[in-house]
């Protein structure tokens, strides 16, 4: 795979690395991810059956219930949370979920936005991804 690098805006600061998990559809943790396993259950998600645990999770924008941040926080409590979240448009539930993770459980889960779906070309689920909000970039290695 060719080197892949995109600039983004860090919303919740930090750095992370892990495998990419890339959705091209609206995404939510609420009723859509099983906190006990980290597995995506949402039938309308292109990630159904995949696991978010330890992944750099990419999706364009959120959807649905305002409970999403508590579903997110429960995955954190159970150790099944993604390592970082990258979106096209800011998803407030990911921001709040990540802030709660930091304040309640002392875990850092950076959140970056401004990386459009069109930039996913050449980025596949499973690629090794490094994210650093300090540099404002996310890059992938084959």
């Amino acid at each position, binding site marked *: 795979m060719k080197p892949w690098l995109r600039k983004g805006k860090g*919303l*919740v600061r930090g750095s992370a690395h892990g495998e990419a998990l890339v959705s091209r559809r*609206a995404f*939510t943790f*609420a*009723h*859509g991810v099983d*906190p006990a396993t980290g597995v995506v*259950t*949402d*039938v*309308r*998600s292109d990630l*159904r059956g995949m696991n978010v645990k330890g992944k750099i999770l990419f999706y*364009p*924008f*959120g*959807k*649905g*219930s*305002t*409970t*999403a*941040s*508590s*579903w997110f*926080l*429960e995955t*954190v*409590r159970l150790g099944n949370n993604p390592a970082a979240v990258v979106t*096209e*448009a*800011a*998803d*407030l*539930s990911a*921001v*709040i*979920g*990540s*802030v*709660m993770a*930091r*304040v*309640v459980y002392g875990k850092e889960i950076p*959140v970056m936005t401004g990386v459009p779906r069109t930039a996913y070309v050449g980025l596949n689920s499973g690629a090794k991804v490094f994210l650093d909000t300090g540099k404002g970039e996310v890059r992938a290695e084959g």
Partner: protein
Amino acid sequence: MHLDSAQEKMLRGEMGEAKQFAMEIVSRVGDAVGADRLIPIKSAHVLAHYSSLHDAGVEVLERFASSGGRFAVPTSVDPASIDLQNWRSFGVPEEYAGQQFRLCDAYAKMGGMRCWTCVQYQVCNFPKEGDVVAWAESSAVVFANSVLGSRSNKITAGMDIACAILGLTPRFGMLLDENRRAGVTFKLGMRGLTDLDYRSIGFFIGRNAGARIPLLDGLPSSVTSDQIKHMGAGAAAAGPVTMIHFPGITPGSRTAEEASGGEKTEEIEITRSSLSDVESDLNQTSELPDLVAFGVPHLSANELGELARLIDGRKLKRGVKMYAYTSSQAYDMAERTGIATTIEGTGARISHSTDAEISPLKALGFNTVLTNSAKLAEIVSSEGEIRVGYASQKEIIEKVTT
């Protein structure tokens, strides 16, 4: 984000532990979203149901309540995960109810209104045009922004309680004029819209607006506020929608031009075939359900009356349960007017203070749910454990009663 000296004190813990915890959350979120400062809110609406808050949410609410947290503004609460009065007769496991009651106790301790409804704007929390509020409940946020002309971001769990305790929210997003302008126009070309159509229209808008603020052109003046409620709920379930401009209804948006600030927007036509697509997406089974659920979001007293009119004199088929979900306040009214007796005489039940999408449906033994709620159909199918059918109230009643 700038904090004034009183807010700095809160952050340092000089105003007590609960305010410090709240300010830590709110200031971090404010920084993340690029807010310049905190502004006062007129009311809050928060979440305290176990099915979605899970054990982490119980920890958070109890931490707020036990460290002296008290709501600084009028605060309403979303439905619980169980019927708080009749949970035993609905078959809720004891342990599950116990966790819900921990949340209820923590919420009550902080001084919230015990309304347990997702339609607080039809029951107890009525902001006026221009009021800034911090509301959770995606469907209510759409109603607040689109119909009441008040301003709310879609405040999600954890942050909701923090804003209610501080009486403050970061100034960003939907609180600012420039972010409220319509960015995409949906055009309704057809006439003769049914009640189900409004729900499907909402879902279609949510699916296709992306992160843009939608405008819906061509809404007939016969539309009711209940229909708008369900349309907004469908939209918010399918996408990141926080507001829909309805020219002539939405305060400040008398015309499409006013809603978009004169900018040209992409136009998407909503046709009969768009709605059929939504219906076939949401309607995944035609089998006889073991649960019919009406009222996601909660039915108003008017809607309970309409249900009574449609179902009067019929009997539910064996093996089918029918729950109409509503607020305790609308239930009281239905009881006083005989509507409740009519509905319950068919074998159906009215469940109040809870709602289907946040009930432990699987644990209650349900495998197939039939509903006219696009929001419920989306949510139930997302969890992937229960088969779901989507049809109009009338069709459903025809199917499951004799």
